[in-house]
């Protein structure tokens, strides 16, 4: 009932509401209603419905004229900004003249809210469009990018590609392998820790000091900058190596491996897993637990057989989102795993390249500094693959949450 009223009031902001008459002097009202016909009294103080079209057309023409005359070159962005400003201002002025101050203000803010939505769409579309328009042609023309690494690719190859039209050399395979291994290892570390910690929080914690401390520090951990997580893993393993192997340069060099990067990513991943899992476990109704206890089932069996299966879809979706988040991380891997051109499957020795780091390096230090275009092309292709992976994980998480949700039917 209330929602009906609410939606009607929402869907018809100007029509169904009475004029805010309480704010006017009563004499005005009576004279108005006596003088005008019934139709007039309904449409009085209302601007005609076609006003916005006229205002939009007018401000578009004005903005076009100004952009053509005032700037040296025509820019679409400048035109759009000017047209938007003119439109909002002119609508406010018209509304102020034909209606009253309250309606004009209301309309003004409504326009600003809509504008903010369109402003947010601009970068989203621009980012996706530039990645797809630059990455897809490269990827379609050189499908070999997916199965080759940068081993043996030198600057002269890129110069040949750029100046003589030779096919694009190299690829992103080593980046894909690196991202796969590092993310896998980070998940192996974080998922058990995160799962058990959140089970402790919901099932055993009882809001005692220890569990409140964990909650607080999980909050703190979500705020750790990703590069600090990288520095932590590096500093920690350096100390470990210094204490166990020695301080020789070779020993210190061996710190930079895939496993160090995986530890860094775990620091970022654990709080995400704990947060989402805890939320899901708290949703499981206490009646289910009590029913299980009443049958004489032990607590751990109850958790394993009743609580976890009920919350499983939510937990799985949260974990997938956490994986998606760390798969796109660059900074912690950049400072912990080094950078190589060849494929390395072993995260426990030698340097490793992850896909985001590969993209970064190709853009900042092109393979051929004088001929950067092939490197840029590889970077855009890599960015497209990375976005596809991360978006795929995100959509997968939503699908898991939707299709594997527990049946609530009787």
């Amino acid at each position, binding site marked *: 009932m209330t929602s009906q009223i609410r939606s009607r009031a929402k869907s018809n902001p100007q029509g169904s509401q009475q004029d805010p008459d309480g704010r006017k002097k009563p004499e005005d009202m009576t004279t108005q209603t006596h003088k005008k016909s019934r139709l007039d009294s309904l449409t009085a103080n209302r601007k005609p419905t076609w006003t916005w079209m006229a205002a939009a057309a007018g401000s578009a023409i004005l903005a076009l004229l100004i952009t053509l005359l005032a700037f040296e070159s025509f820019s679409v962005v400048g035109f759009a900004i000017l047209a938007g400003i003119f439109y909002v201002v002119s609508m406010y002025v018209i509304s102020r003249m034909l209606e009253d101050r309250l309606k004009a203000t209301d309309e003004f803010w409504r326009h600003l809210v809509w504008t*903010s939505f369109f402003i947010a769409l601009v970068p989203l579309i621009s980012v996706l469009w530039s990645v797809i328009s630059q990455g897809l042609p490269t990827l379609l023309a050189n499908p070999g990018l997916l199965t080759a690494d940068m081993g043996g690719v030198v600057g002269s190859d890129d110069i040949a590609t750029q100046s003589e039209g030779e096919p694009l050399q190299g690829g992103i395979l080593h980046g894909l392998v690196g991202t796969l291994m590092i993310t896998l290892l980070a998940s192996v570390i974080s998922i058990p820790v995160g799962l058990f910690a959140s*089970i402790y929080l919901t099932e055993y914690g009882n809001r005692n000091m220890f569990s409140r401390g*964990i909650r607080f520090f999980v909050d703190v951990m979500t705020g*750790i900058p990703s*590069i600090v997580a990288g520095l932590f893993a590096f500093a920690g393993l350096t100390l470990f190596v210094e204490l166990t192997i020695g301080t020789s340069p070779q020993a210190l060099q061996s710190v930079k491996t895939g496993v160090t990067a995986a530890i860094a990513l775990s620091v970022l991943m654990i709080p995400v897993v704990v947060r989402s899992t805890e939320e899901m476990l708290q949703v499981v109704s206490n009646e289910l637990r009590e029913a299980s206890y009443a049958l004489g089932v032990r607590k751990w069996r109850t958790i394993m057989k009743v609580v976890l299966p009920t919350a499983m879809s939510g937990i799985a979706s949260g974990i997938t989102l956490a994986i998606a988040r760390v798969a796109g991380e660059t900074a912690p891997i950049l400072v912990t795993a080094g950078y190589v051109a060849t494929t390395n499957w072993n995260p426990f020795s030698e340097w490793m390249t992850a896909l985001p780091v590969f993209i970064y390096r190709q*853009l900042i230090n092109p393979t051929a500094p004088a001929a950067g275009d092939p490197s840029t092309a590889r970077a855009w292709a890599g960015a497209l693959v990375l976005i596809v992976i991360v978006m795929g994980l995100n959509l997968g998480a939503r699908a898991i949450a939707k299709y594997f949700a527990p049946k609530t039917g009787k």
Partner: protein
Amino acid sequence: MTSTSPRTKNTARTTSAVGDKVFFGLSWTGGAIILVVLAFVAAFLLIRSLPAIMPETFGPGAGEAIDFWSYVWPLMAGTVLVSVIALLLATPVAIGISLFISHYAPRRFANSIGYLIDLLAAIPSVVYGAWGMLVLAPAMVPIYHWLHNNLGFIPLFAGDPSVTNTGRTILTSGVVLAVMVLPIMTALCREIFLQVPHLQEEAALGLGATRWEMIKMTVFPFARAGVISSIMLALGRALGETMAVTMVLSAGGFSWSLVTSGANGTIPAEIALNFPEAFGQRQSELIAAGLMLFVITLIVNVIARAIVNSHAKKAEGLS
């Protein structure tokens, strides 16, 4: 299972009891690991950065800085500056979109619009960096020239010594950062706006308020603390964001000018640019800079949580 002998029943019960203990132990360990890891983060960073923070051992390598603090303060100032720019740009837009989703958009589309904004959060930071460097920076150059020519008397747009021709300035980084924190702020604000009691909203509308008056009277007072804390959380994220600044900005010493390349730098970008090739003393300096960043973000996050908690207590007291 009536045929089961008492003996086997008994063993089943004891293994089950052992299972209980083991499971509790595992869960407790999971929680303890989190505390230990966080203690290690602080301890390792502190141990590794001590040689750099001590004035007597601060060595060359960080330009002309004579001690750690004179090395790190321009970076801290740059970090704060770029985050403030990002928040100034992102906050109005984020509040606008949240209102749009919660109060203005047609009901049918509101959820899909929410997903659309969440998509922004799913894009990896390195892709934003590439976009900012190759697409946004060149597009911003004419705007910077216009700002310099028309508003050059303001120190922010003074363009000292020269206005950028690549667009790789602190303001461009701020714009990219704003885009990156936008989905976080939107998600948090939207959640709070949707929690506003419907009866209050309807009461305002029933008294003849326009929609904007209704939002001003019911939504904003209810959501104020939540919006402030979401701004603080977004600030924490912006302070620590690395790739957007590393790839977009061509760094230099601190400067008030927002339209110059080769000025300003941030702690995360400094680390990302120099750490892979650093060793020895230089490594310690960078880790010490990272420690400073950790402390700043920690303070910001704790303040945000404190605001949320105090507001929750106040709300409990009122009701």
